[in-house]
């Protein structure tokens, strides 16, 4: 996404004359506001980081440096278990939704077929629908159908990993397909046609022409699916069973029972994990993104996450 801004910036800076730039009091107010926004964004995170090392049972009060809370974290088995479930769910739901979402994007962007409008609408709904409604939907669905599946197919599904993964895939497909579609829309279709003209099979065309072109979009969609899965509390809470839940839901339960320094340390580690993900994705985009077409396609990348 960084590349995109550069390409647009270089155009618009030519237009911005000196008088357009804010001056005097306005300039002062604007820059103060900007500084305050960054303080607002980062002060809570930094303070949380500091307090996670504080040797004081009362969170939010400094009591000397300690690593006790991280040790407590390392020794806490329910948390370790929930981390394992979180990672499994995130990987499975990202994998499945990337494949299904990319296929959905290809179908809608490249073909006309019967029912495509309905499919398009269906694909948008999980993005618009509030988390709480989605949670209710999955709860009622599983309460109706788990017994049915058991009696008809003989597969016993208990609430836990399977139900959480099914629900996460259900909302991730849409986000992946939106990001990939944006990328596909900016791609030159004639490249695919040329490959087909040169007797490449459909699969070869996809593998060697389409996929490399949409790779940044697919990667962006994957990152989005991963983040959404690791972020979700409400839906997971409704479909998880006793003893089988993800880290955010477990931590959410802890917070509701009262804040403890242990939560501080867990939070900081979760924070570190998400920052690491962002940095990795920025690095990945730096290498793959520059090869892709400088199309407007990326415009839709970030605001797409916004719709959650």
């Amino acid at each position, binding site marked *: 996404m960084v590349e995109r801004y550069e390409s*647009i910036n270089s155009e618009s800076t030519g237009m*911005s004359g000196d*008088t357009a730039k804010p001056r005097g009091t306005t300039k002062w107010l*604007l820059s103060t506001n900007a500084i305050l926004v960054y303080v607002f964004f980062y002060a809570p995170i930094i303070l949380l980081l500091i307090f996670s090392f504080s040797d004081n049972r009362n969170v*939010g009060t400094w009591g000397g440096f300690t690593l006790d809370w991280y040790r407590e974290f390392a020794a806490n088995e329910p948390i370790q278990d929930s981390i394992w479930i979180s990672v499994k769910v995130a990987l499975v739901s990202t994998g499945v939704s990337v494949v299904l979402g990319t296929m959905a994007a290809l179908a809608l962007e490249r073909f006309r077929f019967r029912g495509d409008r309905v499919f398009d609408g269906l694909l948008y709904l*999980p993005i618009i629908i509030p988390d709480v409604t989605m949670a209710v939907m999955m709860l009622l669905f599983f309460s109706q159908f788990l017994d049915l599946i058991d009696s008809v197919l003989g597969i016993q599904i208990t609430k836990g990993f399977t139900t959480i993964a099914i629900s996460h895939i259900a909302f991730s497909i849409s986000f992946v397909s939106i990001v990939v579609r944006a990328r596909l829309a900016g791609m030159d279709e004639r490249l695919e046609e040329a490959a087909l003209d040169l007797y490449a099979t459909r699969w070869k065309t996809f593998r060697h022409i389409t996929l490399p072109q949409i790779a940044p979009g697919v990667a962006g969609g994957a990152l989005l699916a991963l983040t959404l899965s690791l972020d979700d509390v409400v839906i997971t809470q409704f479909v998880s069973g006793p003893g089988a839940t993800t880290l955010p839901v477990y*931590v959410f339960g802890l917070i509701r029972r009262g*804040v403890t320094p242990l939560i501080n340390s867990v939070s900081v580690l979760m924070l570190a994990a998400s920052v690491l993900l962002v940095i990795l994705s920025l690095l990945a985009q730096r290498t793959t993104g520059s090869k892709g077409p400088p199309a407007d396609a990326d415009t839709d990348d970030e*605001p797409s996450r916004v*719709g959650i």
Partner: protein
Amino acid sequence: MTITEIVAPEPSGDENEVAAATPEFERAAKRAASRRGFLIALPAYFYLVLFFAIPLVIVMVYSFATRNRFGGTDLSGWNLDAYRKLSEPLVRDILFRSLWLALITTVICLIIAYPFSYYLATRTPTIRNVMLVFVMIPFWTNFLVRNYAWRVLLGTNGPVSKATDFVGLGDTRILFTPTAVVIGLVYGFLPFMILPLYASLERIDLGLVEASRDLYANGFQTFRRILLPLSMPGVIAGSILVFIPSLGAYVTPEILGGAKTTLLGSYIVTQFLTARNWPVGASLSFTLTVVMLFATILYFRKGGRTL
């Protein structure tokens, strides 16, 4: 769809035959493409029908059902009782409180984000990119953790109460009040406002601002007559993107709000997990979805492209 498909079945024979056959070929090719598209869409289509559309229909069915004496739900005998409950004072208060807090959150985000985005849009490309990355980081970090951070900050003897004490405001108690919820919501959703606003402000030709200043418009007039109308798509997009999740918020009010600030999200969850009145929970969820749907349609009507 593609040229190859139409040409592919090599037409042999004289010109007349080709002319007669072409529409047929074209139709066959179209059918083949349509079938192929459908097959590619099928896995996701099937998945979403099974695990999204059917659950949505079930919610709708439940919203017309009745709660029996044992906390279960009778699916026979549809009625509108659960919807009637929405007009009861308790539920109405929760509805209005949720709407009000979501509105305040949206307005505060707009007031903070507009000047910020304008500042961002008038920077040099290098500075802009750095600034944007630092907006994106909180945007991607774990939502629960970001709300929890405020719980720590606003707690008793926490940094904020110490600071207000130091300034001389006394020991103000913000945690578990609507104010705390609004702070948490603004903190959570501010990037949703900044990004679309920046995107629309950045597209504006700043020469127009320059021209307006040259023609002796003052700063406010330039904002009112030039910037604001041109950035309206961004304002609307950002507002909807903040308003929708604020209205359905669950995590933030649960962590930062108190017993007196029950919002829609928490109320729905309670109906399912503790009160066991599924029909009422279902009818509220369904109503909320319809409201969101209308807001989104409005957004697209106003020229929003991205979600």
